[in-house]
């Protein structure tokens, strides 16, 4: 394939990855924004989303479409609930102290990962996509006969991948709507700005935190459910999304949802493109170094909240 179409293919694949990354990173960003804690177990909630999706679709017979439809609703709710319980039992106890939360969520990471290993096993299992029509994509050229459109062999995507991108967009819009227009969003933003005052106004801060922690995990799980028909479900699959979400949230600015979305698209796309044309390892090296530089020289990220 020539360079042009190849690049477009890489960008499309990148866009799919970016969509999933956006959802996952939004979950992490929401938790940090409102609760001011870093959840190291975030990748494991992602992994749980994928594993539970496999479990649900295997349990429910019938068509792939039906099983998937159930999974996409039920699984994020389940994972969210689990996360909320973890917050209530553990994080509340350590009083959301930054250092203790990191240690506790590291512990949680191992617990979730290993329990999955014990029950689901060490193998990867696929989940069939609900629909998967191959769509050839056109490419343009100014050739000998003037402006031409043709369909290069290999330049294609699937209807499912487009669905993933669409689902991510809809979720983002939904989240934006909730945060800016609904009463829940108002409560969340108030708690983020000043939890003590919020409490004085009767907002049950600890319950809000449990809800937020659950929402963060649910978003990651949703991203995983979307990606699992493309990728397989494996008990170690949480590590990469965790690292990438971290990178996205920091570069986008801790506490800024808008920054997270922009950074996720940029990083998801460039990770995809660099991985295709160079090596994935190199892409990751560049990404981690970028995070370091941002933290050191622009600690507020691109859009970060101006808090010290």
């Amino acid at each position, binding site marked *: 394939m020539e360079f042009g179409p190849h690049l477009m293919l890489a960008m499309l694949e990148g866009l799919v990855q970016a969509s999933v990354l956006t959802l996952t990173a939004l979950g992490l960003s929401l938790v940090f924004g409102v609760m001011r804690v*870093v959840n190291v177990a975030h990748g494991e909630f992602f992994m749980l989303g994928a594993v539970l999706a496999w479990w649900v679709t295997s349990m429910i017979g019938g068509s792939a479409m039906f099983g998937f439809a159930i999974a996409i609703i039920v699984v994020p709710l389940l994972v969210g609930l689990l996360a909320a319980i973890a917050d209530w039992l*553990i994080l509340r*106890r*350590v009083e959301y102290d*930054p*250092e*203790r939360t*990191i*240690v*506790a969520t*590291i*512990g*949680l*990471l*191992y*617990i*979730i*990962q*290993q*329990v999955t*290993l*014990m029950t689901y096993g*060490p193998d990867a299992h696929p989940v069939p996509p609900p629909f998967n029509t191959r769509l050839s994509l056109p490419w343009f050229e100014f050739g000998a006969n003037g402006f031409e459109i043709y369909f290069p062999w290999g330049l294609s995507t699937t209807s499912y991948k487009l669905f993933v991108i669409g689902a991510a967009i809809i979720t983002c819009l939904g989240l934006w709507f909730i945060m800016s227009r609904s009463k829940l969003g108002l409560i969340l933003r108030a708690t983020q700005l000043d939890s003590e005052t919020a409490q004085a106004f009767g907002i049950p801060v600890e319950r809000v935190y449990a809800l937020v922690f659950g929402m963060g995990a649910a978003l990651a799980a949703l991203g995983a459910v979307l990606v699992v028909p493309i990728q397989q479900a494996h008990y170690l699959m949480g590590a990469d999304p965790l*690292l990438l979400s*971290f990178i996205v949230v*920091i570069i986008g600015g801790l506490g800024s949802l808008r920054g997270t979305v922009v950074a996720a698209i940029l990083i998801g796309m460039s990770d995809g493109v660099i991985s295709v044309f160079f*090596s994935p*390892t*190199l892409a*990751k*090296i560049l990404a*981690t*170094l970028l*995070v*370091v530089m941002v*933290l*050191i020289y622009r*600690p507020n990220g691109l859009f970060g909240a101006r808090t010290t």
Partner: protein
Amino acid sequence: MNKPLVLHLGLIALLIVLQFVLPVYHHGVLARVLVMATYAMGYNILFGYTGLLSLGHAMFFAAGLYGMGLSVQHLGLSVGPAFLIGILASALLSLAVGLLALRTIGVAFMIVTLMFSQTIFLTILYFNSITRGDEGFVIQQSVRQIGRLDLSDPSTRYFSALALFAIVLLAVLWLVRSPTGRVLIAIRENEPRAKMLGYDTWRYKLAAIVMSGTVAGTAGAAYGVLFGYVGASFAQVPYSIFPLLWVLLGGAGTVMGPLVGTLFMFYLIDLSSAVTDAYMLVVGVVLVLLTMFARNGLMGVVRERWLKWLP
């Protein structure tokens, strides 16, 4: 009577005696524990005494390990000089990382150390041709000799590990009771106050990072020399989490804590892995319980309840 010194010398004596008393299987485990406890003691200097939580110490361990290993493999050096190069490599890396990471505080510091460590790990993988990447490489038994001492012999290996441990233990004991150690503790307790007492806290923190990283690297180099294997797994995130776990369990900010924690976890994991593949579950549960209920760790509780003078 210098109670702390006597206590710690007593510990070393006990460890010498164990060599003659324990079955051979345990020699190997204990030798490993002693090297890892040295790593943990290095970590404790920064975390337990200065109050800085690094999530990337594996990079320092790996710097020592690979500095030594690559010198043997590619420069043809014998283990003695190679060991020193390993130490030097980790010292330089910790200086570089310290200079950059100290521009951040709190959570950002933790993330920066994590990211640097990831970068080192990925770099090891990337330069596959030199480092053999994930697979790693072996340091032949024939190379692991110093003079007439065969370092792969279980007894020699044990005593070498013990010698390393003992030297670092006594050095840390001296450090934490010295004026410098007191300043590090002051920084941990209340940095703004320490600054307003005239201390250049940045310089002290940098020194702590370099000391901590160098001890970690020394343990790494020693591990390669004594156990003959150099691999990228030691540069990965779990090996940054382990020293945190060991120190928290044994008692952050105590000199003997790291050994206690390392020993405990080693045997706990040994027992668990006999039962299930998912033995890391134990690590997870212990971490959660520790940070929820027992932040002072085992020796911390001992110090609080019974031995107030325990350093």
